[in-house]
């Protein structure tokens, strides 16, 4: 409702009039719209490289068309099937670990009555979220190195067990960073360390909107602290939990790139490569643009399908639409 419309309600406004009237809004927004179209939508044109044997010197228009050869090549390679398995496994590990740890920490924080202490804990646990993954991986190399603190700690426990006769001889220290069976869990633990505090914010804000009367009523009825958490706090954050879960299903193939790429070495790579890392290796390092593009496009298309599926489920459940 603009001023003119109020004062002169009878004059019919044509589209041109509105555009003239809103010229500043258009000037303010259209350049950014064009920018987004260029940087976010124009690259989708590059998906046609997935159907080509793309060579940079020939360009998009002159490269040879190969149909779906890149896709069939991908899905016939055990390497790519491993990559899919890793992506799904790490994505699910991160989703479960991340959600559970954030909810547990949020519940613990919610039970703290001293505001000062609560704020200190929050400040400390949010911190790693703001460190870059390069820094985090560098720190993890110290902590998990073969003579790092984790192995020290395990060694001390083993010494103790030997002393009291529960263990015969000391096993070799674990080489955490080069053990492919451990990699999925290791990156899960590091991700939890980095994001658990930050993940609590949304749950804590959901908890603050729970009516305090519910807690009072529960304690009058004799519910102890655990009963109150179980029957008041957790139901209070249920809808937040459901929305986040549905949103994350849309990101099921987003297992991450940075941590896997930075922690990769020849011993773990069969278990550490995600789709994004695979795309990086094939596309940028090996210059196999067609194959990398096909893998990337597969991921994007699955993401779109999952997103709309999740959105559909959300609206069926009566939650707000996500998009």
């Amino acid at each position, binding site marked *: 409702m603009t001023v003119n419309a109020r004062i002169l309600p009878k004059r019919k406004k044509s589209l041109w009039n509105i555009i003239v009237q809103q010229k500043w809004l258009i000037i303010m927004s259209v350049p950014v719209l064009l920018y987004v179209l260029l940087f976010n939508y124009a690259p989708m044109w590059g998906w046609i490289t997935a159907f080509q044997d793309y060579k940079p010197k020939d360009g998009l228009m002159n490269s040879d068309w190969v149909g779906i050869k890149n896709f069939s090549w991908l899905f016939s390679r055990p390497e790519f099937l491993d990559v899919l398995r890793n992506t799904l496994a790490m994505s699910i590990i991160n989703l479960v670990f991340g959600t559970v740890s954030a909810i547990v920490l949020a519940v613990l924080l919610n039970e703290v009555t001293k505001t000062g202490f609560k704020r200190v804990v929050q400040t400390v646990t949010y911190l790693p979220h*703001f*460190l870059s993954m390069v820094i985090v991986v560098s720190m993890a190399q110290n902590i998990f190195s073969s003579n790092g603190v984790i192995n020290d700690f395990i060694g001390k426990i083993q010494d103790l067990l030997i002393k009291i006769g529960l263990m015969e001889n000391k096993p070799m220290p674990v080489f955490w960073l080069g053990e492919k069976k451990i990699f999925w869990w290791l990156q899960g633990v590091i991700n939890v*360390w980095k994001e658990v505090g930050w993940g609590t914010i949304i749950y804590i804000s959901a908890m603050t909107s729970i009516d305090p009367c519910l807690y009072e009523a529960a304690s009058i009825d004799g519910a102890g602290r655990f009963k109150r958490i179980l029957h008041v706090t957790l139901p209070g954050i249920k809808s937040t939990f459901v929305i986040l879960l549905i949103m994350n299903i849309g990101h099921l193939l987003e297992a991450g790139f940075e941590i896997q790429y930075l922690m990769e070495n020849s011993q773990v790579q069969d278990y550490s490569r995600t789709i994004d890392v695979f795309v990086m290796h094939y596309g940028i390092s090996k210059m196999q643009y067609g194959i990398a593009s096909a893998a990337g496009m597969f991921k994007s298309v699955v993401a779109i399908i999952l997103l709309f599926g999740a959105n559909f489920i959300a609206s069926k459940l009566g939650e707000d639409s996500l998009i």
Partner: protein
Amino acid sequence: MTAISVKPKRKSKKRDLAFPIVNTIILCLIMIITLYPVINTIAYSLDDGYDALRGGITVYPRKLSFEAYSNMLKDPAIYQAAHISGSKTIIITLLNLFFTSMLAFALSRREYIFRKFITTVLVLTMYVNAGLIPNYLLIQNVLKLGNSYAVYIIPSMFSCFNMIVIRTYICGLPEALVESARIDGASDITAFFKIILPLCLPVLATVALFVAVGSWNSWFDTKLYNGGKKDLHSLQYLLNMKLATTNNSSNAAQTSVDALASQAQSKTTPITVRCAITVVSAAPILIIYPFLQRYFVTGMALGSVKG
């Protein structure tokens, strides 16, 4: 329910005392686990090079030495990298804030005819993106931004999530503000700069922090586009290169022996050098973070309204 209330009260009182204590202990442990790697890395960076190879450093350096830092500070590459990281952070933050808030204002106006269309186009980008290769081809081959400072700036001038944060904030302001300005004859752009923007300072501070942290922490853009140009390397990328070398040497599972052989001349070792760079590139965030923490959280709460 009534059956429970008949229970004797003593038990629940005891539990009420025990729980806060256990809870406090657990939370303190979590804080220690969070801070330990940071302190551990600082301790490594301050330790003597050979001593650090033996490992087992906890929260203090066993053999204090500033060799890693003084060696690093003798290297002109670190100053150049700090300059690149710092300057791109400032430029990106200012430009991004300008464009993002301007669009947020336009999209907060209910009467704006393209509001729905532009919002949909933008929000979709948060869920769908073309992926690495098409983006790389666009920036490297079509726009020819590779090996230039501009590649840091141009692709990061707008962010959709932050736009939503600012828009949510503007929508919370009384609508009459803009309307009365319009009645007084101000154009939309005047209303934005003179009235809305000053009121948005708290949310702009939050968004500025998000953007600044993001661009300070980025390393992948350097790797993709500016890896071959030494004077355009950022601090995070220097650290990334150090990580790559230690990753390779840990493959041999004989880090210490290899490192000793190759570093026989100098007093530093890859471990202490890497930790020193880690500390330097984390320092700005570690230092400013405690003071600005509340701004981060406000922003997160605003964005989650419709994220």
